[in-house]
């Protein structure tokens, strides 16, 4: 925002006056985002549903975006504002990288996002909150890291796994039972899709894999080699395998009791 603020402040989302409103504004909301780290990197995934009150506003919305070559951001909350914030965040990172000739540290990127969320607090108070999940490969420390945020921009690093959005409680419960810290990339991807499945199972605002329409969650992987979005075919394989197993065991894999 430094760059845009200095050169074209009128383009900043926070600089627009808001009309006084009564109650919450009806706008599409994105729902559940989950992330899990594994020894070689981190996966970040999101379901495809946007809701407006009780209506499904969009079935195939994308809520996980690359922030730059080594990081990604997934957003829950008001879709329009969140997409704009991500665009601005991408601009900031790319601009810094080109002007300085070096990338920001992962910590630096996470802090930058924190400030941007804080800038949206006024809107959040009116019901237009944005709560992202930020994940990336830390080039200096050589590991995948996950950061979660609250509406005021409070930032906390999560170890292992994290989730945000309306279905996050259920997704976190699922990941808590499924997560192991020696996952391979594919196992981590499967675990996050399982978690999204469980979130969709119990949260009406989260969409599960839509096999009929071939709409599957967006799953991204960030490793030493950079950001990669799994292809539709790859996610379809994972989602179908999970669906197959759930036909026999609707509640998903069982954890050991002790």
């Amino acid at each position: 925002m430094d760059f845009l603020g200095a050169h074209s402040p009128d383009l900043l989302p926070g600089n627009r006056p808001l009309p006084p409103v009564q109650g919450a504004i009806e706008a599409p909301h994105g729902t559940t985002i989950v992330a899990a780290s594994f020894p070689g990197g981190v996966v970040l995934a999101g379901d495809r549903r946007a809701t407006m009150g009780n209506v499904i506003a969009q079935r195939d919305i994308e809520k996980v975006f690359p922030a730059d070559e080594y990081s990604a951001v997934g957003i829950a909350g008001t879709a329009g504002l969140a997409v704009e914030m991500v665009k601005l965040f991408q601009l900031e990172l790319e601009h810094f990288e080109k002007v300085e000739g070096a990338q920001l540290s992962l910590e630096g990127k996470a802090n930058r996002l924190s400030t941007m969320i804080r800038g949206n607090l006024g809107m959040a108070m009116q019901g237009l909150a944005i709560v992202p999940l930020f994940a990336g490969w830390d080039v200096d420390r050589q590991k995948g890291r996950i950061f979660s945020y609250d509406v005021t921009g409070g930032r906390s690093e999560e170890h292992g796994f994290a989730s945000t959005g309306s279905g996050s409680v259920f997704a976190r419960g699922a990941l808590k039972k499924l997560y192991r810290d020696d996952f391979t990339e594919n196992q981590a991807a499967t675990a996050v899709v399982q978690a999204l499945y469980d979130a969709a199972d119990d949260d009406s605002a989260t969409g599960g894999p839509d096999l009929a329409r071939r709409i599957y969650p967006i799953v991204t992987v960030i490793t030493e080699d950079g950001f990669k979005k799994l292809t539709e075919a790859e996610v379809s394989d994972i989602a179908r395998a999970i669906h197959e197993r759930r036909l026999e065991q609707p509640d998903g894999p069982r954890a050991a009791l002790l």
Partner: protein
Amino acid sequence: MSTPFYVSPQQAMADRAEYARKGIARGRSVVVLQYIDGVVFVAENPSRALHKVSEIYDRIAFAAVGKYNEFENLRIGGVRYADLRGYTYDREDVTARGLANVYAQTLGTIFSSAAEKPYEVELIVAEVGNAPEDDQIYRLPHDGSIVDEHGSVAVGGNADQISSYLDQRHREGMTLGEALKLAVESLSRDTAGAERTLTAEQLEVATLDRTRPQQRKFKRILGRQLSRLLDEHVGAEAGKSADGDEDASDEAAGGAAGESSGASGASDAEATSGKDDSGKDDSGSSKGTETSED
């Protein structure tokens, strides 16, 4: 009270142009060549931190010679222009032509403003397209004119000689290795026609590669990758010279033996005849056409 000397506008402009040209000629050169997958930038630059070649946007890169602080200023201005435009409209709406126009306005204004000294810089703005025909290369001399170039272009000290060397030898559809080799050969000739050896450490190399899967096509070629490209081509060239045409075999001999007095003599002659041509900037477009005929 003394009367100020009268200086005719022609004289004033000629003086300023002379000043800028001298400043630019002191520096080392940058060459830009089209190859089959895009555009390659090669600069003689021993510094790892101060770049002569940089990324501007997805498909656009920038190369410059002259005073570092002046072209760095222009580079940051260009990044700012491109990022702002891409954010406001769409990434597709950032074009090399638009950027070259902005640079031309800036350079032209500075050049003709009596209060400032002219910038001692010469820029190249290149954009890689979906096919080689869609690649665009613009050369921007110190006075704010724009020259649309094709195939190959050189700026900096000794640029005339290097461009004529490149014009004779550059052809369409070169591989990256071939183009890089040709660029290094052209840079390693000094004014007298003698050759120096340029190692990977003295070179700054970057490409705009249309086959790169990422949105941003700019890539620096560094360290081992650069040495490998430079080395592997020496072997390939030697094998090819058997059935190659005269130019190619000359080049191969030069590359393999480290000196080829015949070839450099010829390029010297070319350089002298082409000198006036690139001195006046407007005529550059005709030079561009010539190149494409080759």
